[in-house]
């Protein structure tokens, strides 16, 4: 299993409508954890229309980019829930019993979890 490294970016909590219309830095991946909650690794700025938006620097997640083969070999055997069919997609749930998330693209995936779970996840995935 590849090492999990800190993912720094912006964490944004705003109304779902505001997040739908938000403008992000070019080329960033928006991980929409919830309708009102997004994490954008690598992002430096955001434009969002919500007077009470919460925007903070986020460094509480760690992750690793995986190829499709690595995903199949290292991660999928430890997942009990069905994968989303569309791409790109964000999937969230227990992986090897550890709360984690997967951002799935056509030919690669980002495995991430809270830094506090990094040791357990890496240890369980071998």
């Amino acid at each position: 299993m590849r090492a999990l490294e800190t993912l720094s970016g912006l964490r944004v909590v705003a109304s779902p409508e505001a997040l739908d219309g938000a403008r992000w830095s070019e080329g960033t991946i928006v991980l929409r954890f919830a309708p009102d909650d997004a994490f954008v690794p690598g992002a430096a700025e955001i434009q969002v229309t919500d007077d009470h938006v919460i925007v903070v620097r986020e460094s509480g997640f760690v992750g690793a980019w995986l190829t499709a083969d690595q995903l199949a070999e290292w991660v999928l055997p430890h997942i009990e829930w069905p994968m989303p069919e569309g791409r790109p997609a964000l999937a969230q749930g227990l992986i090897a019993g550890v709360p984690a998330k997967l951002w799935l693209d056509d030919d690669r995936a980002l495995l991430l979890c809270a830094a506090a779970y990094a040791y357990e996840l890496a240890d369980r995935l071998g």
Partner: protein
Amino acid sequence: MTGVGRIVLDGRPIPYEAGDSVAVAVMRAGEHPHHGGTICLAGDCGNCVAEVDGVAYVRTCQTPARPGLVIQRHPAVGAPPLRAAAQIDVTNPPPTRHIPVQRSEAEVVVIGAGESGTAAAAGARRMGRSVTVLDARDGMEAVAIYAGPTVIVRTPDGMLHIHAEEVVVATGAAELHPVCPGNSLVGLVTARAAEQLHTAGVDLGVAVAIGSAPGGVPCTPVAGSLRRIEGDGRVSAVVTVDDDDGDGERTTACDTVILGLGRAARDVLSRMAEDLPVSAVGPAAESFPLPAAPTAGTVCPCSRVNVEDLASVWERGFQELELVKRATLAGTGTCQGSVCLPHVRAWIAERSGEIPEPFTARPASRQITLAEAAAGVHVDAFRRTALHDEHVALGARMDRFGGWWRPWHYGDHVAEYWAVREGVSLGDVSTLGKLLVSGPDVVEFLERLYPMGVADIRVGRSRYALLLDEGGHLIDDGMILREAETRFVLTFTSAGAGHAEMWVRDWIDTWGLRVHVLDRTMSLAAINVTGPLAGRLLERIGLPSPPHFLQHVHADICGVPCHVMRLSFTGEMSFELHHPVDRSVELWRALLAHGRDLGIAPHGLQALQGLRLEKGHVIVGMDTELDSTPRRLGMEWAVRMDKADFVGRNALARTGGLPDQRRLVGLTMPGSAPTEGSPIRSDREIVGQVSSSFTSPVLGHAVMLGWLRRTPFPDTVEVDGRPASVVKPPFYDPEGSRARA
């Protein structure tokens, strides 16, 4: 001794032939795989279970014989020994076998590849559906169906969990066993077992058949109904009576009794899957006639329940099938009712006049090992703070608290205590719950949520707060810190943080208020800099004017952006530095380096628990109970009943005037602290218990928090056989001058 190979039975080798199961090989050797009872060779009963290669309760009829297999028969009475517990060193358990688990998905799973299963599978395939067929004879043994539906399968390669859209149970029917005196003897086989044994070339001796005789097996049919079986250990004769008049016993000498008494649906898997897309087909779905109600003999060989046991519990009022099951344990053993259920139903039907439905079936239908049951199951994941490795490097003894690994001590909790009381110390409080809330309705929300005032907290100030449920019971506590007019930070206990976040979100949704919530518990680390020299340390490293008590500021400390909160849980001047987790090690090391000449040292939870106890601070869940109200805790000062409303207010208003016999109090006594949980006695009666205790180094005696449950609350009590005084906490610095310094 001939045969294609040998297995070991109770320490001696016996041969087996090609295609033999262990049970057949044992019977070929003239033995019984257990100690008696009818053999079905179909996996339906528990009469052939034995220990196989160290695993107990294995159905030997379903276990192919192979060279060197070691069979140890279970004791005739009692359970087989638990090997892990029988060894001398129980702290060093034997190596276990890792059972892998595979998961797959299927549109249709058909359990059973017999006639009805094959037909069901073909029908599903004709409809264009993908079908997975499982059959124990192919090594794919379905042992459970859970919601989903998920079929749990034992395979030669480990466990298989199949998520299916539909499950078809085509497991056929099991043969009835006899219930009569003598039904535990050796020499009883069902008709299908007799056919298998005959085909395998096993000599049955002089065989008689009761009921439907098996095809092709040399035996003498005996007419009439089975009355009893005679013999001393082994069958020597069978006694029948004429079906027409019930009189005139006829005794027939024999070596083997072949029993064709009827069948019962093998439906345990479908019965454990009610309300799921699981159906039964073929004999598994049939309603077979029940046998005659038994009058004597063993009904449930697995749990050794006889007809007299059924009558005994019936007379005591257990007159429903589920109650009879629980009172006698019939149906709870190895075969899960496959043998006894038809007979118990018949027995109850004769008494009640109604045929009861079969009792509930629950996973697993077959004996599986703990390793098989646990395959693919993970223990809870405990979180590590960003400082975990720093603690370990400093010699900390780490332990699990509130879902986290935390340092209990660094080798000398008393020295850690004095570092806080007299110098400066660091504590890792990263585990505290931390929510950021913002929105136009946030003040209204917090006023409704908390029992104390929120609107009057000025920006840059904070306030201690209780979190109550609708019953007015304490569920958590923490701080409210105002960052802006419509933006607050809320902190919670480490163990309560997860529930508190759900609690907050649930009330926002319930009230329909415009409040955003961001849980920063695992994004922000926190280091508590505490002790009379804490302010001096912070002045050195970027905070020339540290905030006053209950104030908070944002500042860079050693180059790390921190939210600095001036609080106190230890009773000394304390600054919590909340900062990004990826900068925590850097900050920790810088603080230790800059405080070296001040004698800085980290403290663990053991010291912290004593420090806070001297101040009388409660730990939710340790000093509180599920129904602890502010009044019982002596914390009514943290509740503003003049507020129009808050969660729990109605309950507090309703109960506030009622007498209450429970109170959390402070206790002191000379000497060392008694064990937490010690009973508190008054007039020789137990009137409460100690919830926290500590031998206070600074006070030189024991201090405690404890619950009293009897009024009038006494002034003196007895704990650990010693007199103790009931006092009002805090025990140390009651004016709070040190925390406010």
